[in-house]
């Protein structure tokens, strides 16, 4: 009886979106039996210990528990309401046949073979045939051109400069003795001991993307979402956030393989598309709620925003400073930088600019391509230097 109830309960949790594997069922029954059924809160925490493995699921579990273990009739109704929706096959996700066809057509064409070429060249190669497209501003592209640009972005690969980790692999031109290998060798051969060496393994640092999706950015932000998806798919340890008036973590959704599915989900999730911007507020939100969770291993942070702020740059200064101090490198991508006459006039830009390592444009494919290069070769002060005197003067 208890087992059946717990199975029902687990189904309810699953139906409401929690990841409860069948392997947990046996544990849940054992746990419930161990604490007994005399006290409701004991049962609550016993099931909680087994079925919940994420702090964010706690509220969901709480509601489900209150619902389930009170009135079985009520639950039956609730499940009856929910189940048809669940058992029906999910509506086929939007997959335009055109995109498929184009993908196939491309394969028939003369695209460069996807071997394992050098990363740096890879980014350049994937753009080679679209010279015009590369220079064109996203804002001025036709629908057709936008589609082409999206495909180009899908092929984009970002080489981030690798950093030393504290793990080792064997290597010849290295300065640390690998005792384990040395010993094994000398056991096999005897005689004089020949030293083996090891060197630190290298790996790319985590990447954090913060993208502005407010009204002033609208044409770019959708394109940049494609860009973010392309990067997320390529690398592990990429964390993506979008912000307008509030901050949303979209990392999990961008891991979806299909780009349309991924962006469709993000669009559903995010409530503040094309609205105003509160940069200071959102940066603070990031610093307080997320920075400890995603910034621990010295990431490269890319901030994508035009710096136009509804709150008149309220609170941006200290928050961007903290952000800068807690990451390895802060790169600011600003689509407005395409104008030659761009000057740090707005208060938001003036607040952010002193605290970024690099300041780059992001209005066309070329500029995103340049970013690939920049991640491989850090150029501290890039784009910032020429505005420095103006900042000081003002």
């Amino acid at each position, binding site marked *: 009886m208890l087992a059946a109830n717990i199975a029902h309960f687990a189904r309810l949790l699953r139906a409401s979106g929690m*990841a409860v*594997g069948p*392997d*947990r069922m046996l*544990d849940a029954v*054992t*746990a419930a039996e*161990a*604490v007994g059924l005399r006290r409701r*809160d*004991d049962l*609550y*925490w*016993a099931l*909680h*210990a*087994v079925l*919940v*493995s*994420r*702090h964010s699921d*706690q509220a969901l579990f709480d509601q489900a528990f209150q619902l389930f273990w009170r009135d079985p009739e009520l639950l039956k109704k609730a499940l009856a309401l929910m189940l048809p929706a669940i058992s029906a096959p999910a509506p086929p996700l939007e997959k335009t046949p055109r995109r498929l066809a184009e993908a196939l057509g491309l394969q028939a064409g003369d695209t460069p073979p996807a071997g394992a070429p050098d990363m740096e060249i890879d980014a350049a190669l994937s753009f080679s045939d679209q010279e015009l497209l590369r220079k064109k501003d996203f804002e001025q592209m036709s629908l057709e051109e936008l589609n082409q640009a999206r495909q180009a972005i899908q092929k984009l690969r970002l080489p981030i400069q690798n950093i030393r*980790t*504290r*793990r080792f692999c064997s290597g010849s031109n290295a300065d640390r003795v690998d*005792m*384990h290998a*040395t*010993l094994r060798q*000398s*056991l*096999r051969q*005897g005689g004089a*001991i020949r030293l083996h060496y090891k060197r630190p393994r290298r790996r790319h640092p985590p990447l954090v993307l913060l993208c502005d999706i407010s009204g002033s950015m609208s044409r770019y932000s959708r394109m940049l979402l494609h860009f973010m998806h392309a990067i997320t798919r390529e690398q592990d340890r990429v964390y993506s956030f979008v912000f307008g008036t509030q901050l949303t973590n979209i990392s999990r959704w961008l891991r979806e393989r299909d780009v349309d599915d991924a962006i469709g989900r993000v669009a559903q999730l995010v409530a503040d598309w094309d609205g105003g911007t509160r940069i200071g507020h959102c940066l603070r939100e990031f*610093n*307080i709620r997320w920075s*400890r*969770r*995603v910034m*621990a*291993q010295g990431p490269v942070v890319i901030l994508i925003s035009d710096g136009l702020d509804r709150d008149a740059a309220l609170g941006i200064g*200290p928050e961007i400073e*903290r952000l800068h101090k807690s990451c390895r490198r802060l790169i600011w991508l600003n689509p407005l930088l395409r104008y030659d006459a761009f000057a740090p006039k707005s208060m938001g830009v003036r607040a952010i600019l002193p605290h970024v390592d690099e300041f780059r444009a992001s209005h066309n494919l070329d500029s995103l391509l340049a970013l690939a290069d920049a991640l491989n070769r850090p150029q501290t002060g890039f784009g910032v230097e020429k505005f420095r005197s103006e900042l000081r003067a003002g």
Partner: protein
Amino acid sequence: MAYSARMTLSVPTSIDETLTLLQSGGYIAARPLATVLFLALKLGRPLFLEGEAGVGKTEIAKVLAQALGRRLLRLQCYEGLDTASAVYEWNYAAQMIEIRLAEAEGIQDRHALGTDIFSERFMIKRPILQALEPDIAGPPVLLIDEIDRADEPFEAYLLEVLSDFQVTVPEIGTVRAAHPPIVILTSNRTREIHDALKRRCLYHWIDYPDAARELEILHARAPGAHARLSAEVVAFVQELRKRDLFKSPGVAESIDWASALTALDKIALDPQTINDTLGVLLKYQDDIARIQGGEAGKILEQIRTQSDTAA
């Protein structure tokens, strides 16, 4: 609590017993935590504790080991933690000497030398391997502290250890624990731990305690503090946690603060003392700057009026 030594050393058989066990060690736990701990002991499962810094995640392992009379093995995680410092390492220097001696004596049997060199005699055991070994006092408590600081490869390595309580040493074979150790993992959530690891554990999120429990904790952990001071410290800290701070003070900070104020011979809070000792409570300059001065005075006034109306 008049517990005989024998009673204290046996594993609790109910949630209430778990609560008293922790209390005897000076750890004031909420019932949910005791429930999970009881289950972990009963089902022989690792316990995964998450929560903000300073809510007593590490402390629980220490108290448990002490109250049960078990050995505590602590593994502090850091990036690049590898099997050599977590599980075992060969004593290379001794092995080298052994090889040299063998050669000097003209021993020809390389195979025998190989098995001899890679035997337990030349092994330096680290916490995880130690935890799998039998102990007279009973299986030890293995504390894997701040697992979020270790990198993913180590996390993956732990999977084998935590699901089967065994370790494979290529040169020797598989070492298996006859009686699985009590394993407690803690995380400050500086990154998400992989689901595969969490699935092998019982999960619990430790929250900041409510005012009543925090007061109890202060009585147990800072017994020298004046009753009024403790009450005010708790009220002040609870109020601070409601503010929008970069890092809210944990229980560890309240205990430190109460002890610090007692050392200064204070029996109640006053604005000047708060300003002078705020560094015990808050660890970020921005936070200190926000609270110091007028804000601290305001909070103090607020908690005074609250306690007056309550009284």
